[in-house]
């Protein structure tokens, strides 16, 4: 099967990027609508928020796969011809980079750890593209500020540049308006 379409969309908080991405999936010719979620609930408000989103999507026949870490583990659940929305790269990176942090050994502090995860992610995105009709990757704009976390922000820039280069289309979301950059 030929590679499906890849769309990259990034924007600020509450810029409407997720809703826009959902509409792109809904309007696609994908056989199933799959929501690949990287978010993790750390407090009751987050639990509620995630639950509410899940309920909303269930009504619209979405299939939700929660995969905060190791995105490749979601691959067996993806079928040929699916339309997949991955939300989002920023959360995924935070999860992966600080995995093991509570045990005092985060990935960020171990040489080669993030490089390995990054290689896995690139393979996973390629595998998803091979199978899906449409893959939409959502991310956030967090690099137009003072550098607060050099490792995180450097990786995020690298990941975004790569995804944007792979993408058939790339959009920057400004308050609900999708600006086409590619």
């Amino acid at each position: 099967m030929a590679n499906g379409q890849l769309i990259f969309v990034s924007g600020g908080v509450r810029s409407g990027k997720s809703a826009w991405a959902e509409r792109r999936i809904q309007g696609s010719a994908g056989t199933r609508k799959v929501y690949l979620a990287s978010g993790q609930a750390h407090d009751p408000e987050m639990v509620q928020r995630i639950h509410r989103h899940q309920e909303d999507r269930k009504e619209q026949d979405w299939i939700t796969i929660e995969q905060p870490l190791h995105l490749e583990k979601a691959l067996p659940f993806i079928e040929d011809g699916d339309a997949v929305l991955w939300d989002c790269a920023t959360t995924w990176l935070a999860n992966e980079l600080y995995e093991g942090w509570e045990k005092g050994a985060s990935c960020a502090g171990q040489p080669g750890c993030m490089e390995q995860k990054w290689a896995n992610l690139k393979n996973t995105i390629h595998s998803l593209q091979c199978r899906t009709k449409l893959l939409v990757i959502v991310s956030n704009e967090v690099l137009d500020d003072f550098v607060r976390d050099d490792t995180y922000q450097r990786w995020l820039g690298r990941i975004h540049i790569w995804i944007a280069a792979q993408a058939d289309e790339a959009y920057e979301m400004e308050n609900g308006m999708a600006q086409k950059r590619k």
Partner: protein
Amino acid sequence: MRIVFGGAFNGKREYVKKRFAGQEVEWLESELPKGSVVFSTIVVTGIEHRIKTQLGNGISEFQIREEIQQMLAKYKDYKLIWVLTDMNRGIVPIDPLERELRDVLGRIYQFLFSEATEITRIWYGIPQNLKGGDGR
């Protein structure tokens, strides 16, 4: 004078390097050109670091701007490219020096934007033409 502008780690330097590949360029990190420059193209990057140090040493915004204006006049016959990092879309910093830096940078960038004949914004490696130029 040209400007390549965008957020941190968006591939601005890579873009400039690719565009001037094979050409001899005077590449300056966190400093302004001084004295005689051999090559006809000058790339000035990381002025935010230089300006932060200057402000920390008590040099005024007026003096910083004077210095830039004098430098523009002195090197007006060169092909000058500024690589400017957007740092002004975040939360108000707690550190007073960083707050001052944001204000000063914002005003200096506005001045440089008004002087530039060509401005390219880089968003994750993708160039977008904001002023003049051919949009490459």
